[in-house]
């Protein structure tokens, strides 16, 4: 298949003294700057080390990695802003690099003039801008202020104008860096759908983002850049999963409970360990919304126990009980537990809860209110966001409540047709305010 981008053994070295103090690899910079103040020593950083990959025509490739890993440098080299130290790269077709929204905007020029300026900077011809002017203006939603210098614009208007131009680029290869990281919810929504359109139009897109939901939604394939090299290259879902699992705080998949203090119960049965596993019974350090999960509860019985019940309870960060999955409610009967060690497994088909930190409580009890063991909040489970609704939108924090229902939306027939001539302007639900309102309890 025809490739659109071919990168072979690409390396880029920066001399420390030459680095942009503010922008380039922020993290690495600070670390190096501290010991680079001694003069005469030239230290180098390899921002990219021997990177090779190819991108097929029409492919949408996500690039993930931590700050300072070299993602932006890679885009800069590909867009020829900076030169590689060694190696080669080939890009077929017209390239447009979108490293920021509204590159080259001039404060004193009007919105319309800036559309021309920005468009031509991004590689559009005058004719193309003329032809698309109406679309761009319409998309930006700033038609009223088109003849106003953009220094009078709010930052949101500026962003919209910049993105409107970018969304109408007609390049074969698009290099996009973190454009979605800015702006409010509405703007991000618009960007995302524009990005979606771009990616289905047969263009080759390289998409750098920290928004994993967006990457998962837009890209089939992803590359994980780490320390200037390709760490993993494969299907977006897999790459993102392993990438996210490296983050500290993703939680342990196993907790020792033997020596837990503060436990109630007579101790006939005692929890010794809890394990969070995937379907193949391997430890699962990264748990994402909608994932399947197997909870394995290890226990030790000191004597024969008849008909015990076990429970796994989940609490939100604020102490709200999210669920209590127990054998009694499920009607799962255990006739007898013999002395010694054993375990019981709870299989959760889909973890339909919002991203966030959860606390696990466990209990085991018998008939007639006998507590064998009760551990309150003995383990932590961090749930990471995923593209649960396949919308590419990140559902953050407490904005959306606690639970995600697997669901879909449908429009009633009465309102379905394009009866109204105008674009319907739906009232925008402001997630921020809503969340604040409901948090006030």
């Amino acid at each position, binding site marked *: 298949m025809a490739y659109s981008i071919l990168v072979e053994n690409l390396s880029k070295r920066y001399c420390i003294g030459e*680095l942009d103090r503010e922008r380039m690899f922020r993290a690495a910079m600070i670390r190096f700057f501290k010991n680079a103040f001694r003069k005469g020593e030239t230290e180098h950083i390899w921002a990219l080390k021997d990177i090779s990959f190819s991108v097929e025509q029409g492919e949408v490739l996500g690039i993930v990695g931590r700050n300072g890993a070299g993602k932006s440098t890679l885009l*800069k080299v590909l867009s020829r802003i*900076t030169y590689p130290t060694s190696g080669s790269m080939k890009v077929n077709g017209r390239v447009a690099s979108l*490293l920021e929204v509204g590159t*080259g905007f001039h404060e004193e020029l009007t919105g319309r*003039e800036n559309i021309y300026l920005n468009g*031509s900077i991004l590689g559009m011809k005058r004719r193309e801008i003329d032809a698309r002017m109406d679309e761009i203006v319409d998309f930006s939603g700033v038609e009223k202020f088109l003849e106003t210098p953009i220094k009078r614009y709010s930052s949101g208007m500026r962003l919209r104008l910049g993105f409107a131009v970018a969304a109408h680029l007609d390049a074969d290869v698009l290099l996009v860096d973190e454009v979605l990281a800015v702006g409010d919810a509405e703007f991000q929504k618009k960007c995302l759908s524009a990005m979606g359109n771009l990616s289905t139009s047969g263009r080759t897109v390289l998409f750098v983002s920290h928004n994993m939901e967006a990457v998962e939604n837009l890209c089939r394939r992803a590359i994980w850049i780490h320390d200037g090299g390709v760490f993993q290259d494969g299907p977006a879902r897999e790459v993102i999963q392993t990438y996210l699992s490296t983050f500290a705080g993703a939680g342990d998949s196993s907790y020792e409970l033997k020596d837990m203090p503060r436990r109630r119960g007579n101790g006939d049965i005692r929890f010794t360990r809890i394990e969070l596993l995937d379907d193949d019974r391997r430890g699962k350090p990264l748990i994402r919304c909608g994932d399947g999960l197997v909870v394995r509860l290890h226990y030790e019985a000191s004597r024969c126990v008849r008909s015990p019940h076990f429970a796994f309870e989940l609490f939100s960060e604020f102490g709200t009980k999210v669920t209590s999955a127990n054998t009694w409610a499920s009607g799962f009967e255990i006739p007898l537990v013999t002395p010694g060690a054993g375990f019981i497994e709870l299989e959760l088909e889909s973890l339909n809860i919002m991203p966030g930190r959860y606390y696990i409580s466990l209990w085991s009890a018998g008939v007639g209110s006998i507590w064998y063991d009760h551990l309150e909040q003995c383990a932590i489970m961090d749930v990471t966001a995923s593209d649960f609704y396949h919308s590419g939108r990140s559902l953050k924090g407490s904005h959306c409540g606690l639970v995600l229902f697997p669901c879909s939306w449908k429009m009633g027939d009465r309102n379905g047709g394009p009866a109204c001539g105008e674009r319907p302007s739906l009232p925008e639900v402001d997630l921020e305010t809503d969340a604040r309102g409901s948090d006030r309890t």
Partner: protein
Amino acid sequence: MRSESIREFWDYRELFLFLVWKDVKVRYKQTMLGASWAVIQPFLTMVVFTLFFGKFANMPSDGIPYPIFSYSALLPWTYFSGALSLAGNSLVANKNLLTKVYFPRVAIPASSVLCGLVDFAIAFLVLLVMMAYYGIVPTWELLLWPVLILPLMSLALGGGMVLAALNVRYRDIKHAIPFAVQILLFISPIIYPTSVIPERYRTLMALNPLVGIIDAFRATVLPTRHVDWQQLGFSALTCLVVFLVGLFYFRKAEKHFADVI
């Protein structure tokens, strides 16, 4: 290689024109006097020069009215010094473009040099008015102005490219430019005629390409004087050399602009 980069520049011609258009457009934005500044600057300088050098210091002006004498040299000078400073600072001023998007980098200093032409043309109209006031009948040589501006542009662009490229790495240049411009003003025949320079220093002075060009500009205004083609040719050649050297250096340095700026 060479022809490739020329073709590339051609491909980006629209962007280049947009950059020039932007520079022209924003030059006098949010100013009260707007484009009048194009006239006020050389004109007031001429008035001050006439008063202090022409009147009080009795500077010889080869028998020409001092206002005409100085204004005809101040026009190319104002253009040149403006273009040189603007081009020298252009890369740093357009840092956000350099680090965010690719295009032939030469377009940035080149657009600075081109944008000053508008001012130059406006100020030229005032020269015509002054000539009428002093009863000087224009000769065909006045038509040489569009030609004479070419070596001046290549000199400003050549020097501007070197300064701009150096400025990317060493911000000292930003402070050096006004100083250099001031020195250039004194070693070029703007306040004084070339005739006041002792004969033995003239050859040395002719190394400054501004001498031949500014003298030529001045000569075209007066019916009694004629362009010294030999001197002009030498100066134009020097300008071309400066331009080529500047271009060469610029192309060599541009690979690192985005990393260093």
